[in-house]
């Protein structure tokens, strides 16, 4: 087997990150399929696939338990007998419930937490906690060791890397003085400043209680009390997940689109990923307008004499009466228009490419924009093969 692919798929986990709308799900599924074609047992965990892509992966009916794609379909795409592809769709809410179920000390606590209205909003509460629970699920599947490679599609979030920090934030919150004041008012009542602060807080909270619905303060205290018992278990697991994400077992693939906004966000992602000390394997620029051959796209408008020559050639190639000069004009405009798109994408992605490649052993791959929405295994297979080929060239 080839070196580039081996390097790309040497990890047990590949996490695809990037901002919303760039086709992360498509790229994740394509990578998993490409891994299956190298004979690996691959699993793709998706978050919110487009409906037809979900259908293609057989996800329309299923929940978050991995289910295999039919053997014959895979064989038709060149997956050898040793390879397999499972897909699962993450149910974010259920995953978080699962976390509580695992960590709660007893059934009563579990019920209390799950029924608590504040719990329903914990996902909003600490940005990234849903994303984090997705990582929890990945960890669980990783521990089962049923797969050679797990490719993870991360949730579209405003701050899509929050899952890396979420556990820490949740723990900090539980440790904070305010939480202690609320849960154990008696302990800290001795200090005048604390008492004042507590009184002020309660006053404001009561006002807010009216705004957000009745019983908020009570719900919060109850939730925190119940959750407090879970904190040690939570901390332990959070640390293990964190260690796994930073280990050599896990690689990250950044997915970006050619739009300026997406490039800007990808640069920010890159800096944060490096800050976390995780291993960035490479970047996939998705839906890039590429020139159809190795030549450079022409600049500016076509020369009138060239358009006239094209009109004559078109007239010669069609029955008389068809509007050859109009067609030649339109063709020249299409060439100029598409060339402008190609150059725009090149320019926008240039800085990103430089940054990625400067980081050393990383692959860079521009996946061309396909003429159709990606909604079948064949297109996934084409994209996967494309990325694999680029990884080869780089090796």
């Amino acid at each position, binding site marked *: 087997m080839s070196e580039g692919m081996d390097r790309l798929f040497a990890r047990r986990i590949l996490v695809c990150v990037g901002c919303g709308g760039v086709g992360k799900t498509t790229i994740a599924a394509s990578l998993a399929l490409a891994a299956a074609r190298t004979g690996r047992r691959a699993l793709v965990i998706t978050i919110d696939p487009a409906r037809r892509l979900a259908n293609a992966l057989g996800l329309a009916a299923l929940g978050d338990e991995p289910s295999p794609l039919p053997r014959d379909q895979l064989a038709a795409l060149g997956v050898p007998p040793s390879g397999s592809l499972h897909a699962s769709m993450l149910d974010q809410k259920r995953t978080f419930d699962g976390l509580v179920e695992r960590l709660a000390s007893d059934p009563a606590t579990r019920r209390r937490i799950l029924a608590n209205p504040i719990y329903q*909003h914990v996902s909003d509460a600490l940005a990234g906690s849903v994303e984090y629970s997705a990582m929890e699920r990945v960890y669980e599947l990783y521990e089962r060791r049923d797969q050679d490679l797990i490719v993870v599609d991360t949730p579209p979030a405003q701050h899509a890397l929050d899952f890396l920090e979420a556990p820490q934030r949740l723990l900090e919150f539980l440790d904070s003085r305010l939480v202690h004041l609320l849960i154990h008012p008696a302990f800290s009542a001795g200090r005048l400043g604390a008492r004042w602060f507590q009184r002020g807080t309660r006053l404001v909270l009561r006002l*807010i209680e009216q705004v*957000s619905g009745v019983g908020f303060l009570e719900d919060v205290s109850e939730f925190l009390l119940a959750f407090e018992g879970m904190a040690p278990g939570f901390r332990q697991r959070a640390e293990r997940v964190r260690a796994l994400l930073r280990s050599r077992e896990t690689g990250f693939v950044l997915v970006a689109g050619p739009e300026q*906004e997406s490039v800007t966000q990808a640069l920010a992602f890159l800096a944060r990923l490096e800050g976390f000390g995780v291993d960035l394997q490479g970047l996939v620029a998705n839906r890039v307008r590429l020139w159809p051959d190795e030549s450079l796209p022409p600049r500016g408008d076509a020369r009138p004499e060239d358009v006239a020559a*094209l009109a004559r050639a078109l007239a010669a190639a069609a029955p008389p009466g068809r509007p050859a000069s109009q067609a030649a004009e339109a063709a020249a405009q*299409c060439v100029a228009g598409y060339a402008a798109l190609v150059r725009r994408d090149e320019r926008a992605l240039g800085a990103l490419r430089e940054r990625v490649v400067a980081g050393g052993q990383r692959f860079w791959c521009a996946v061309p924009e396909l003429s159709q*929405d990606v909604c079948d295994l064949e297109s996934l297979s084409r994209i996967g093969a494309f990325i694999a080929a680029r990884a080869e060239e780089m090796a």
Partner: protein
Amino acid sequence: MPTRAEPPPLLSRRLVLVTGKGGTGKTTLAAALAQAAVAQGKRVLVAELGRDAALPRLLERTPRPLGYPERQIAPGLFAIHIDPFEALAEYIGLEIGLPGLVRRVLANRGFRQLMEAAPGWRDLIALGKVWHLEQMREAGAPRFDLLVVDAPATGHGVTFLDVPRVVMSAVRAGPLRHHTEQVEALLLDPRRTLVLPVALAEELPTRETISLVERVRQLGLPIDRLVVNGLRPRPAPEEVGDLAAWLERVPDDLALGALPRPSRMAACVRALEARHALCQRYTRELLERTGLPIVALPYLVEGIRGEADVAVLARHVLASPIEAWR
């Protein structure tokens, strides 16, 4: 399709809530609307509710971050970032005083984290601030002729607009009830308010927009058109027929000066045609499934770099919407 009376002009409202899936160009549309209204001589306030402050880059020559309260960014144009904690401090300050204590509590990190957990209040307080801005008077006339709100992305966007109703079902009396009623009355008033969804002609945004429109209608919020962003033009006139196939009949080794080989030209034509076809397909789906007329905004090759590009979109924003698919 049946012909309908054309909807009233977009800018005849007092409040336009721009909403849609993330990445569809909500902020750009909000900026374009604001610019178009200023060009008509209106005093306009744009309000950004999200955390990504892109508005200044779109509207100012030298962008500076937005804050609270609003600041003037151009003649006739004001902008504000409605930070929920600032708005809450202002509201509580107006209602009960004690500014020092309130500020101290609101600045506490633990308190802020706790408040992040509280459902709904951020949306309510932001909408309350929008109402407050709508009510502002200067020398007897409204301080702003038009408020454009860059609302949160859908998913969250509809919850956002539903909050006053939810609060009213929970709070039976008192000043909060009274204020919420006024916010709700503003949102539901078709003479003052318009919910303006923006979509892209792609699969996921189309799906989400269709469900957004359903939800907006269930809530009884005023809606009369959709904006579809990034539409690609038809690459070749219809009478030319299948241009790519025609080009492929030309011998590929024919010298055409600086033009690429015919097969490469055909590839360019096909790439542009494919995008155009997808745009048509999803625009048609949006028209048919929502029954709403569509305002089409063109795809700009270089993206939205600043004021000048926003001005291009501003010219399209006020055009009569497409009623049916031709």
